[in-house]
């Protein structure tokens, strides 16, 4: 019997190895937010375009919004930009930008070139708000309800399909209200 005990470490390792093997094929970016169904973290930061304008959570509470984390160093952000413009034009939901660990001049230039889908942009050069939000990288998009509670998080490019999904969630809220 004691002999068999010595096999326990091997057994544990085999189980662990199995999980690690499986882990390799899983996309770690598909993590839900730890803040799901929790209020958006408090912050006071300057906006991107007007450094003297300080914004906080109160500036978008009261209506559902999309908060989009982006940066000029992020190629996928360029990819999703067209979709963001379309959402902004549809007028269905305001889009707030969270410019993450970025350079102010470059970011402003980017918006001038590609168009600006954002109502305003929170300028988070230090990534402190990103840290509070648990941002893994850009792009990420958060759907907030009118109370400022995070209801959905999407990591990666915001595609037309994802937008469909988000619209369904928003519609769900409207029907509850009526």
């Amino acid at each position: 019997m004691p002999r068999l005990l010595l096999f326990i470490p091997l057994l544990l390792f085999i189980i662990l190895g199995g999980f690690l093997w499986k882990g390799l094929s899983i996309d770690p970016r598909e993590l839900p937010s730890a803040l799901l169904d929790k209020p958006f973290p408090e912050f006071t930061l300057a906006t991107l375009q007007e450094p003297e304008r300080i914004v906080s959570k109160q500036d978008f509470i009261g209506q559902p919004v999309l908060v989009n984390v982006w940066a000029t160093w992020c190629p996928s952000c360029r990819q999703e930009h067209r979709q963001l413009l379309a959402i902004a034009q549809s007028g269905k939901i305001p889009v707030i930008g969270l410019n993450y660990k970025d350079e102010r001049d470059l970011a402003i230039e980017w918006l001038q070139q590609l168009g600006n889908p954002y109502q305003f942009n929170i300028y988070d050069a230090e990534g402190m708000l990103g840290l509070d939000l648990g941002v893994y990288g850009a792009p990420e998009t958060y759907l907030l309800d009118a109370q400022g509670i995070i209801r959905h998080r999407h990591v990666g490019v915001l595609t037309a399909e994802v937008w469909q999904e988000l619209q369904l969630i928003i519609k769900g809220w409207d029907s509850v209200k009526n």
Partner: protein
Amino acid sequence: MIPEIGEFALIIALFLSAVLALVPMYGAVVDKELWMSYARPLAKGQFLFVLISFLCLGYAFSQDDFSVIYVAQHSNSQMPMQFKLSAIWGGHEGSLLLWAFILSGWTLAVSLFSRTLPLDMLARVLSVMGIVATGFISFLLITSSPFLRYLPRFPEDGADLNPLLQDFGLIVHPPMLYMGYVGFSVAFAFAIAALLSGRLDTAWARWSRPWTNIAWAFLGLGITLGSWWAYYELGWGGWWFWDPVENASLMPWLVGTALVHSLAVTEKRGVFKSWTLLLAIFAFSLSLLGTFLVRSGVLTSVHAFASDPERGFFILMLLAITMGGSLTLYAFKAPNVKSESNFSWLSREVLLLVNNVFLTVMAFTVLLGTLYPLLIDALGMGKISVGPPYFNAVFVPIMSIMSIAMGVSIAVRWRETSAKLVLDKLWLPAVISILCALVFPIFYGSGFDFRVFIGISVSLWIISTVITEFIGKFRNTQSLSTKLKQLSFSYYGMMLAHIGVAVTAIGITLVSSYSEERDMRMAKGDSVELAGYQFTFHGTHIVTGPNYMADQATIEVTEDGKAVVTLHPEKRRYNVKRNMMTEADIDAGLFRDLYVALGEPLNNGEAWAVRVHYKPYVRWLWLGGILMALGGLVTVADKRYRKQSGQQELTNA
């Protein structure tokens, strides 16, 4: 030309390590002295060629050879020379090369400083290290060569190293850490060699003890440096984040701590052999697992090295071979668990067993916390992440109980001790530490605080038991100096390390209970009060560094009207990647740090967001870490090891 020589040298090193893995091992199996005697020269050859390869990469960095992809991605012509050179290990490929280089260095050291080791044992040990080296060098060559070129067109200048890493901390932290990680390969190789030869006597434990202690000390130093670096460089005053990469270094350290103690029991009393072997295998396996976690992209982390599933797969295979192989060997050849000698319930053996169990449990707790998101995900149960609350909830109670056991273990003898003797020795330290801990928070803080009470009482308990035990040694001696000389270096090292634990615990307790911080908008002339200090902001001016421009603020600190210090935190903008960096300025002190960091400019630079911290006793955290490491190194100077391995001078260094 030079980078190609580097690549070629690495290929030669791969062949040498493959031969090292096979020939001496085969010699040991068939008992042929000639084959076994190849081990030493092969170890030297392998070191030489990895060294050449390493120097070639260093040369490419120093000469700004941006045709080499790795150099172009991690360096820039404007960077100061010391950062160009430390950029060698600023990315994935180079840090693996550093890994291989340090591994070959340890292999060389074993071949040089083990003259009294029987030849077959040496052959097996070096062969096992050769197996590990073969795995790692092929990993380097197949998936991550640092010598690949941009051809025919290459960038005119490099992309610069991440500014976070352009710092003294990066020069020293990774090599120290890797010295520890890789150093456990020696203990591992000794354990495997002992299992293979079936000679599980106490000699094996004595041989591997000094190596294990050095590796453990380096790993501890590496972790300490990492924590210190994070504290001053990341700009928000945190010193430990339970980040997967940090956990990856903490796990081998915890198991290594258990191993250091378990080896002591095995050497002195011949017991717990199966434990010691298992811990030796685990310590190194966790080092490898750490590498896997960091490099494979299985877990995301703020350390954000490039990660890649192909590399992850390769490391997983390495892990499967070394860990699976060694645990299988262990299962078949480890001595039966019950073959232990006699000792009573109140003996040092039992307390060290408790120590083994607790440290292993802690390491598994960290492993679980680190892998939990992955496990849940793989089981299809959704995605979650565990944060610091989980780790703190588990760590603090276990650490407190262990600290109590630490105090007791010092007073207890091998084999058996009478309860009365133990009580006689321990009542005074117990009373002193509880009383002091009751009084301290009332005087130092604003009132009684349970967390502070626990932290301070266990720390004082450790210190006071060490001191009483030390004084007890002199009770029956006339001459102080003879007795001081009589006590062994092992004994001094042990006491030093235990006091280090207490010092770190005091630091952790006080800095987490009594830190104060404020974020505020400050214009020229504004001032703020924090913990009795007055911080006055005198505006900013522009300074120019070698590869950055910075806004440097002047903040004057006074206490009761008397000047304390003037701090100059900076907001840097690096020229190449154009990213901003916060360079905090810290007035360090033994009892408190004043820490100031610049946030964002507001109103077009008229005012700034400023973050001010007051961090009591934060230095004790790292001071304790240094004491522990120092303790580990002191033990190696013990006469016992010098006798058994001739002129083993290097191990003293």
